[in-house]
């Protein structure tokens, strides 16, 4: 099957700034692949190099085995959906969509048929004569999509295409895009800074930071088995704690503050300074002074009602702030979620993860204590 | 995208044109100024800088040093330009200020009315004045009836009744103002328009009176615009020869532009004309580069 992209030691330097630092990535054919990261991490630059708008400083871009790094963009069978759509204002929708067909040997009749077909696929039947200025944001995005897809590229690149749309429209279009991709079967390479979007839509994803790939894998892997504290923090609330690690018969023994915990996940062979991570939904709350391993006392500082669950802010040990998610029907007996309530936090060894340090130390729980509340990472 | 040479290739004809018809033309001025003249008083340019003859340049410079006609004319030009500039500012600033800040819903119309004179042939505008100020012109009659003519005679700005167009420095200066004020108003307008209203509101909020707010906020912020406008107007004014010719035609108002015109186009001694042109250009070069630098920076700051 076609449409596989492999990046080998791809580097891009602008004067003395290294935007993309020798990355290796594998984008299997026919999959929805996402590059996720904060702004400035190099994801857009990488996408532009795949498209051909930037020339790599060094490295290879292999499209189905052929290195296309030096091939000009108009000769690559790769098409892009731009962030601002870039619909030609002086042409109507049909002319926009048919623009690239001029370079594919098709008859006028075939061209009309293809345009109609693709407009049907993106649910814009009848829009042929409209001008881009007369379309809404969502409609423009679909025309941009149609314009690229009608050329049946091997790979479709999407540069934060949903960024300019409001929240509800975004959600709808996310599902539509995913459905289209599954339907057509072309490889989609999607760039975004929104982790929820990435988790929702991708078959595989790569988390990038400061020009390199922190981790690549399926959404589940990246979320539940983050390799670095950056990845852990970027994809959700991560509850990081500083710890002293030592391998301990297959698992890891973490000394956090005065207590020792057992962690079975992550880089269990680490020795020395490390970070411990647990997802909020895996923290279990028990009544004050409950016995057992991997437990520590804490104080409920706040309990935020989120509808289906509570987000509980807990202060522990040396003043760090942890966040736990407690589903409303999973309320532990004997534990009241009100301010000032003393509880015990149970961090199961199977959920406690040891992380390698990453280039950019993001918020540990201590730092989170200083900061005002946020639920998702911002841009 | 596309090799760098594709785009350079596109620029080539324009660059070549400017190179030949602009840069070489200037070089020709230098070569004539540092050249010689033949027995028919025609210039003989010396193309090789190593051959340059400083004779004529030194002649002109010594004329300056010894208070000769060039010095007199240059000083007169400076005076005229300075006075005209001051008057233009006095008239132009309030108009620009009004147009930028107080014209409200008339802004578009006012702007059009300010732009129109900009595009009317300069000579036609002068012609209009000549019509009005000629012996029986409406302007002459009105000025006489309103007593303004008398005022001008008293203050020595006019030497004979109705003789507006007979070699009067005041007429030249006023013509300058009339001719160049539109060129000053537009950059002033742009600068004043760009000032954020909120700065002024903040000053008022802190207790400043309207006049004080103007003096301490608006005026300082508009200074770059004032300078840019003045430079933009000064450059052509320094070289203007046709305005004195049209409105005065007398040696009493000969300006440096007239001198250059006499020596070059009217043919008496092109070498000297070239020398004067070169000197004028050198003096104005500083102004030219200053203007280019400041307008580009202002455009960048405004987010062009």
């Amino acid at each position, binding site marked *: 099957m076609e449409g596989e992209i492999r990046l080998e030691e791809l580097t891009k330097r602008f004067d003395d700034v290294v935007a993309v630092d020798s990355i290796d990535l594998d984008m299997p054919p026919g999959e929805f692949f996402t590059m996720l990261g904060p702004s400035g991490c190099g994801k857009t630059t990488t996408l532009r190099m795949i498209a051909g708008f930037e020339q790599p400083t060094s490295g290879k871009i292999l499209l189905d085995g052929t290195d296309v790094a030096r091939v000009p963009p108009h000769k690559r069978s790769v098409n892009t959906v731009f962030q601002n759509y870039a619909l030609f204002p002086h042409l109507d929708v049909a002319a926009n969509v048919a623009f690239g067909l001029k370079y594919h040997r098709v008859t006028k009749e075939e061209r009309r048929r293809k345009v109609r077909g693709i407009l049907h696929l993106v649910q814009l039947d009848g829009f042929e004569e409209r001008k881009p200025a007369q379309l809404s944001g969502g409609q423009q995005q679909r025309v941009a999509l149609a314009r690229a897809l009608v050329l049946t590229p091997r790979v479709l690149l999407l540069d934060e295409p949903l960024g300019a749309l409001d929240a509800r429209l975004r959600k709808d279009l996310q599902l539509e895009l995913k459905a289209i991709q599954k339907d057509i079967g072309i490889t989609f390479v999607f760039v975004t800074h929104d982790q929820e979007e990435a988790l929702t839509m991708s078959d595989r994803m790569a988390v990038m930071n400061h020009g390199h790939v922190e981790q690549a894998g399926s959404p589940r892997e990246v979320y539940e088995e983050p390799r670095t504290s950056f990845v852990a923090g970027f994809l959700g609330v991560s509850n990081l704690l500083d710890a002293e690690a030592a391998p301990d018969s297959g698992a890891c023994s973490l000394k956090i503050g005065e207590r020792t915990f057992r962690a079975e996940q992550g880089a269990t062979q680490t020795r020395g300074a490390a970070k411990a991570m647990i997802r909020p939904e895996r923290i279990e709350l028990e009544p004050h002074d409950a016995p057992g391993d991997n437990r520590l006392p804490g104080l409920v500082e706040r309990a935020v009602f989120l509808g289906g669950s509570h987000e509980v802010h807990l202060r522990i040990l040396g003043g760090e702030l942890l966040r736990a998610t407690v589903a409303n029907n999973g309320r532990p007996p004997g534990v009241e979620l009100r301010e000032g309530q003393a509880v015990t936090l149970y961090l199961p060894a199977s959920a406690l993860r040891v992380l390698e340090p990453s280039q950019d130390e993001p918020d540990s729980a201590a730092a989170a204590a200083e900061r005002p509340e946020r639920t998702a990472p911002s841009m | 995208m596309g090799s*760098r040479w594709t785009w350079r290739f596109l620029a080539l004809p324009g660059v070549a044109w400017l190179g030949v018809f602009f*840069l070489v033309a200037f070089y020709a001025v230098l070569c*004539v100024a540092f050249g010689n003249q033949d027995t028919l008083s025609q210039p003989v340019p010396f193309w090789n800088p190593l051959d340059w003859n400083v004779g004529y340049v030194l002649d002109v410079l010594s004329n300056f040093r010894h208070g000769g006609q060039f010095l007199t004319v240059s000083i007169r030009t400076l005076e005229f330009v300075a006075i005209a500039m001051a008057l233009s500012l006095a008239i132009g600033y309030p108009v620009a200020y009004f147009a930028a800040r107080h014209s409200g819903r008339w802004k578009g119309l006012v702007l059009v009315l300010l732009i129109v004179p900009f595009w009317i042939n300069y000579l036609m505008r002068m012609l209009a004045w000549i019509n009005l100020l000629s012996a*029986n012109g409406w302007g002459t009659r009105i000025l006489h009836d309103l007593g303004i003519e008398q005022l001008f005679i008293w203050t020595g700005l006019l030497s004979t009744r109705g003789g507006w167009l007979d070699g009067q420095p005041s007429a030249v200066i006023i013509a300058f103002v009339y001719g160049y004020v539109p060129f000053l108003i537009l950059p002033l307008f742009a600068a004043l328009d760009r000032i954020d209203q909120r700065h002024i509101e903040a000053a008022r909020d802190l207790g400043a009176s309207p006049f004080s707010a103007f003096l301490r906020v608006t005026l300082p912020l508009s200074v770059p615009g004032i300078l840019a406008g003045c430079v933009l107007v000064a450059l052509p004014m320094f070289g203007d020869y046709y305005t004195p010719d049209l409105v005065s035609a007398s040696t009493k108002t000969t300006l440096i532009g007239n001198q250059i015109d006499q020596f070059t186009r009217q043919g008496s001694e092109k070498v000297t004309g070239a020398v004067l042109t070169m000197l004028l250009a050198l003096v104005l070069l500083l102004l030219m580069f200053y203007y280019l630098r400041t307008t580009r920076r202002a455009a960048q700051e405004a987010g062009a």
Partner: protein
Amino acid sequence: MSWLRNPWGKPRVLAVVTGLYILWSIVPVAIAVLFAFNNGRSRTTWQGFSVRWFTGATGSVFHDPELQGALKHTLILAVICVGLAVPLGVALALGLQRWRGPGGGTINTVMLLPLVTPEIVMGVALLLLFLRVFPNIGLGTPAQAIGQVTFTLSYVVVIVRGRLTSIGREYEEAAADLGAPPRDQLLRVVLPLLAPAIIAGAAVAFALSIDDFVVTQYLSSDASTTTVSMLLYASARGAPTPALNAIATVALLITLATLALAFVVYRRFASGKEAAQVAALEV
């Protein structure tokens, strides 16, 4: 009169000043235009309405050979000027905007210099150029045309570049992405989007050419290379008939009509603010 004491505005005095200025600025020209329609030979005494100075049998713009010649020559020069300045200017603007590597800044500065060079300096320089460097071309119509192109070129470049900057690179990239080679990117996408600026540039070049005086005069050879501006200059202090007013009015109308057209076109396809900036020639 509460708004007179209103702390937020003192526009009345300024409004009056502005009004007076506008009148002072335009009325003299309006009067000159008025006298173009004077029935008699006077340019200062109104003798009734007539179009004799435009279309009359003798001494009118359309029948006097001198006047007609000047008008014709003016228009010929204007057309040649636009015909050369616009293609050169558009190409130069594109090349400069996309210039990569050293030299771009210098060329940009050189391109901007004619905009700030005093006319007499340009006139003398070009005169010497055509006397001593290109004596085979010499003075006359070709020289006048070349001289005019040399300074209008920069205006075209500035106008086109302004529009290029606001268009940005996205459309070209999109075109390339869809398979268009660089030539098609230019022809199918960039040039159509540049059209309003090109038209505005052409209009400005046309108007500047018609109104030009110094360079045109310096490079003229004989009576056959007289333009309307030169005629105005030569005759103004004499005892001309209102035919002079008439020919000036004709030139004025042509200029204003061209510019109004360009402004309208620009507004239709680009923003009004951009159009205003072009009209005010904000370099």
